């Protein structure tokens, strides 16, 4: 056994080494690409990539078809038109009109070139910057001297978005910035310090913001009560537990069959949804879709995560029910959906909107109130010297009380599955539309969720009262009733909702397997912005279809017709959003 003195001496040596190591890491980031000793293999081989997408992610070369090009051109044009509208809206940012429009427009996606500006407004960054002049630099200095998280940050910066053109190279400018932001933040919010996952979130923010803005944006996501990610990353992950419990509750209530299926195969939600909540779906769903979710998240906050988690399982329900084991289910949710979600972004976002309504109606949109343990106890930016143990990177053998609690919960969750009866739940995943009543084994819930969803939708289109329930808008975290009184609602628009839901059913049967297919484009006809004027693109050209013709398009698709139906952009440049009514129905 070592004497106390020997132990202290050894710790001193370790501390010196840790200090030297931290300084060495900082120096390497100072030098950036001028580091002479960068391992060749630290830079992912460039030759395997040939194409960068619009966000900078590199992909193996893929041949673009003529149709892909057409689609890209169409989207570009829509975005140009939308950019104009957003710019106009930004001039009048605090007006009531903007507030109302914002809620609709954010659902269509913020034009990428304005994303930084709009996110900045959502996160109120200008104010943070104004109130905290010099703080970032100060934290960075502290970090260099004291941060116990530098090694972990260095490991993770080296592994973050290596398939992105700006993060690809070791010590590239972006890697330098990411390193500094995380290092500085580890000193600003000392309770959280650095937690794996934060590099991903900050990494995305840095694609849009400069370094200091990213720092404050990250801080907003952690500390602003709308997002409150502090509770996710802090030791013991208390908010993760709350998310998981709430997610399970939603599944039990709205998709008992799926819940049972997942339980039966031992797939606990912690397995597939941890990353959904920790990094807001990054690398679990395609990046373009993820940005759309981020747009909505920035406006509405944490309820979007809950609703999106539900949406992913709901939209893939039939597929999931067909899967026969844990491996398949987990791989699907963890890997496959990232590569190919199977539905175009607009369809998913519309489904997300509907999910947000549905959860709101069931009073399940908000998480239960947070316990005190989730909130910061120490004021930010207040320097506390880390313990010797923390500095030398010593791992604690024992769990803290909070950690033990988390561990027990996770254990209980994973072990309480798999003990149900072995009744075969819908082994073959019945095609949607043919599902009759299913034997109900789940006491509290009367109906198979398919039936319920369909019934709800019928209510929406057939009953005025139910219809007005739909027009509840989310407003900065609180929900206000948005009345449609006085707005003329035509039967055509009613049809569009019904059609939407039916189209969704069709999608479930014909998931898109990568390229453009009748199913996704069909969705465009129903779900994209300009529903009232729809253009049917054929190889010969474009012909316009008006509202009343929608129905036949849907029928055409449901009848298996492979006609390519795409929404026109004509409606989008209209200043007054002639697609508003439909949007209100779907989005409010």
């Amino acid at each position: 056994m070592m004497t106390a003195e020997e132990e202290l001496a050894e710790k001193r040596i370790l501390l010196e080494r840790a200090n030297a190591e931290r300084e060495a890491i900082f120096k390497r980031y100072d030098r950036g690409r001028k580091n002479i000793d960068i391992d060749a293999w630290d830079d992912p081989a460039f030759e395997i990539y040939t194409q960068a997408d619009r966000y900078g992610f590199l992909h193996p070369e893929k041949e673009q078809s003529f149709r892909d090009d057409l689609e890209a051109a169409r989207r570009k044009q829509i975005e140009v038109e939308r950019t104009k509208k957003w710019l106009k809206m930004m001039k009048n940012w605090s007006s009531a009109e903007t507030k109302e429009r914002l809620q609709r427009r954010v659902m269509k996606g913020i034009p990428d070139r304005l994303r930084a500006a709009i996110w900045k407004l959502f996160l109120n960054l200008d104010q943070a910057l104004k109130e905290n002049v010099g703080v970032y630099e100060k934290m960075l200095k502290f970090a260099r001297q004291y941060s116990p998280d530098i090694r972990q940050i260095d490991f993770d910066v080296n592994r973050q978005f290596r398939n992105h053109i700006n993060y690809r190279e070791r010590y590239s400018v972006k890697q330098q910035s990411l390193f500094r932001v995380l290092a500085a933040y580890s000193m600003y919010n000392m309770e959280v310090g650095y937690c794996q996952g934060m590099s991903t979130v900050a990494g995305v923010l840095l694609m849009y913001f400069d370094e200091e803005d990213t720092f404050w944006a990250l801080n907003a996501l952690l500390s602003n009560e709308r997002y409150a990610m502090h509770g996710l990353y802090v030791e013991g992950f208390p908010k993760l537990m709350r998310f998981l419990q709430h997610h399970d509750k939603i599944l039990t209530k709205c998709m008992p069959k799926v819940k049972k299926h997942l339980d039966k195969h031992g797939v606990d939600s912690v397995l597939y949804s941890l990353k959904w909540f920790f990094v807001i779906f990054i690398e679990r769903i395609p990046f373009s879709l993820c940005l759309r979710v981020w747009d909505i998240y920035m406006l509405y906050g944490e309820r979007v995560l809950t609703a999106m988690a539900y949406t992913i399982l709901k939209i893939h329900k039939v597929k999931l029910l067909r899967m026969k084991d844990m491996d398949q289910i987990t791989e699907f949710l963890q890997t496959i959906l990232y590569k190919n979600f199977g539905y175009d972004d607009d369809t998913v976002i519309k489904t997300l909107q509907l999910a947000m309504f549905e959860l709101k109606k069931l009073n399940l949109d908000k998480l239960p109130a947070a316990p005190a343990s989730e909130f910061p106890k120490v004021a930010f930016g207040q320097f506390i010297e880390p313990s010797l143990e923390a500095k030398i990177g010593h791992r604690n053998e024992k769990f803290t009380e909070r950690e033990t609690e988390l561990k027990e919960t996770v254990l209980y969750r994973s072990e309480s599955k798999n003990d149900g009866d072995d009744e075969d739940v819908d082994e073959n995943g019945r095609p949607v539309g043919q599902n009759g009543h299913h034997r109900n084994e789940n006491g509290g819930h009367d109906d198979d969720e398919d039936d319920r969803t369909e019934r709800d939708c019928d209510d929406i289109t057939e009953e005025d009262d139910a219809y007005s329930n739909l027009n509840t808008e989310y407003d900065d975290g609180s929900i206000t009733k948005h009345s449609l009184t006085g707005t003329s609602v035509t039967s055509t628009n009613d049809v569009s909702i019904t059609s939407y839901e039916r189209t969704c059913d069709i999608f479930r049967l014909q998931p898109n397997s990568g390229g453009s297919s009748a199913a996704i484009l069909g969705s465009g006809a129903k779900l994209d912005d300009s529903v009232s004027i729809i253009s049917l693109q054929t190889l010969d050209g474009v012909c316009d279809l008006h509202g009343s013709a929608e129905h036949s398009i849907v029928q055409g698709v449901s009848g298996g017709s492979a006609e390519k139906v795409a929404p026109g952009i004509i409606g989008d440049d209209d200043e007054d959003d002639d697609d508003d009514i439909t949007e209100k129905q779907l989005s409010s």
Partner: protein
Amino acid sequence: MAAGDPKWQKDASDQNFDYMFKLLIIGNSSVGKTSFLFRYADDSFTSAFVSTVGIDFKVKTVFRHDKRVKLQIWDTAGQERYRTITTAYYRGAMGFILMYDITNEESFNSVQDWVTQIKTYSWDNAQVILVGNKCDMEDERVISFERGKQLADQLGVEFFETSAKENVNVKNVFERLVDIICDKMSESLDSDPTLVAGGPKGQRLTDQPQGPPNANCNC
């Protein structure tokens, strides 16, 4: 027997093995756990690696002693804060690959702590192999082979140095771990047949399988 029939191989994947072993790869952050698993399961190595947030797993089926053994290999986040999540998955694991990085002293110093975690949270009979990864980076080595071996001897576990990048010893580690687990199963059966968690009750791995072949030791 269904599992012996090749036509089953594609369809009913859950029927397609005689035994299932749950294995975990643990160790400090950035020692190469995910790369090691990818090398073994997909025979690929990429420097566009990502850090594991939470817990992932991959499946690989191998043949040992004429039996199909399905390996369910769990890959874990290394940061200390995530131990609470990862240790919950230790239960029921039959084998652990405890990994450090030969170029990172801290990761080696943490081995003892990881062993404590295994002892505290896993089944008594869980088998462990100590692995020093990144042995291709000889220039940056700070932990000698001897130090690794010595520690493994002290702990009473087997030891390998590996490189996921150069594909050194990766397969060997898994094969050895599977063998040790099989030996342990047979041993436990000899002493107390009810102890066996790894196969059909009362059946030895060296016996001809009887009855339903999809014994699942994920107890």
